[in-house]
């Protein structure tokens, strides 16, 4: 049964989509963690749901709608450029309103039960060839963007005052990064669902922080944990037909616990 499934086309699609998304999330994670944007990621994902439901309602795909919804929110968060408590409050307010709208869209599109569930908890086996193409294009563009802006973005994330003085356009990056993040979130929704987005965007980077203090090692560990959890989760879901998202989140959380234990032992 397991080996038969490994040969199936939809499994290949799922593995490729999962791997691509995992690499992007693994690279975004350390930026998200150092910039304290966990809640903003969650908010972006929930409004991705609103976008997806809206997409279904007007007859475009859920994935396209999610991308549009997330990007709109990413731009909004970027332009508002709020810090700390202001941002938390604004994020909470916007996402509650948006999510309410998403519920209505789902109801009106008459796919409340089936699609709604998939969007919330992820349904990676439902990724079509067409969606995989878009996902590859979006993630490819994100990787390219990260390669170009990665170093100044890192400078602006860990040491904003000096970065600004050294000529890093910290304000522009503060707008650009949430937009890149929103695109990554929209693609990740297809793998983990809206509610489990942080399992790939936050958890691997959080674990990596306990494994290393050299930035390159932290990024590498974050990608490795993200990739391992996603591929491992998909394979486990083939062997035991429980939800993929459950396995992915269990694996990344296990990595986090082990990393923290290791950090305690090392000291």
């Amino acid at each position, binding site marked *: 049964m397991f080996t038969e499934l490994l040969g199936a086309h939809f499994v290949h699609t799922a593995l490729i989509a999962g791997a691509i998304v995992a690499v992007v999330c693994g690279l975004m994670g350390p930026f998200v963690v150092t910039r304290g944007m966990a809640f903003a990621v969650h908010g972006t994902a929930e409004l991705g749901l609103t976008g997806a439901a809206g997409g279904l309602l007007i007859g475009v795909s859920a994935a396209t709608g999610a991308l549009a919804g997330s990007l709109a929110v990413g731009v909004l968060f970027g332009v508002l450029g709020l810090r700390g408590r202001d941002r938390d409050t604004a994020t909470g307010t916007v996402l509650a309103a948006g999510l309410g709208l998403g519920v209505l869209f789902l109801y009106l599109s008459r796919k409340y039960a089936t699609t709604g569930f998939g969007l919330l908890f992820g349904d990676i086996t439902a990724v079509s060839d067409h969606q995989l193409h878009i996902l590859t294009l979006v993630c490819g563009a994100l990787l390219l963007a990260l390669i*170009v802006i990665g*170093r100044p973005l*890192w*400078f602006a994330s860990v040491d904003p005052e000096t970065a*600004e003085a*050294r000529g*890093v356009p910290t304000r522009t990056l503060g707008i650009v990064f949430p937009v890149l993040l929103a695109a990554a979130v929209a693609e990740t929704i297809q793998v983990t669902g809206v509610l489990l987005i942080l399992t790939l965007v936050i958890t691997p980077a959080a674990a990596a922080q306990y494994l290393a203090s050299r930035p390159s090692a932290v990024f590498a560990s974050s990608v490795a944990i993200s990739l391992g959890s996603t591929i491992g989760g998909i394979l486990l879901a083939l062997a035991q037909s429980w939800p993929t998202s459950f396995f992915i989140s269990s694996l990344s959380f296990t990595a986090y616990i082990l990393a923290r234990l290791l950090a305690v032992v090392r000291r």
Partner: protein
Amino acid sequence: MTDPIVALSHVAAGYGQRALWNDLDLVVERGEFLVVLGANGTGKTTLLRMLLGLQQPTAGEVHVLGRAPRRGDPHIGYLPQQHGFDEQLPLRGVDLIRLGLDGHRWGVPLRSNNTRARVAAALADVGANSYANQAIGRLSGGEQQRLRLAQALVADPVLLLADEPLLSLDPAAQQAVAALLDQRRTSKGTAVVLVTHEINPLLPYADRVLYLANGQWAIGPTREVLTSETLTRLYGAPVDVLDIRGRLIIVGGDEASTGMPGDHPHHVHDDSGRHVH
């Protein structure tokens, strides 16, 4: 005849309707150590931001190395007001210093021997070799400040701007950081413009003091500016400067502090340049 490092003529600063100071004339020469004193909200950080090209004067002309300040000028090193790094921050001392060298560049970081050598030299200059490879958030305030200083100096600036570099350091660390700053300007001729509340650790090194108060200013050798007469004139209220065994104690009006009178906590000037009332 070479240009001075910093030249301000008739410069005014402010936000909207509120003027911080007016008609400021200032020249800083190579190797000079200028200390900027004044209460919160008098525009000390604003002066630094102006020299960094991050804020425009409302009047007058600002020149750094003979030209208008521009953002990211590699000739300027900047030591921002200290806030401790987060304990879990994935960053070591060497990484912080390296960002000071090439952190502003786009694209893939390339490691060259030259980069490594410059980072190593900057580390050695501040004596931070033994902890440079540890997570920076777990180091003491004094150790973090040495690393920040190495970061500010790694690109070999001719002007170093420091915003409260001695804040929240213990006396020994204050002495050490102040001595390192002095050593740099005497050995390499780097001009230092340093904003502080606390003049005493810097008394042995400061060439001149710029004192900002009530929208006015006074500049001159330390012992000429920090006198009862000058400060009384600036504040328009009685201020006494006492010299006790080489330490200056300034007592102004009903408030007393070492270094400066008249702190106005209800009028705080934060480093983003906004005002919090």
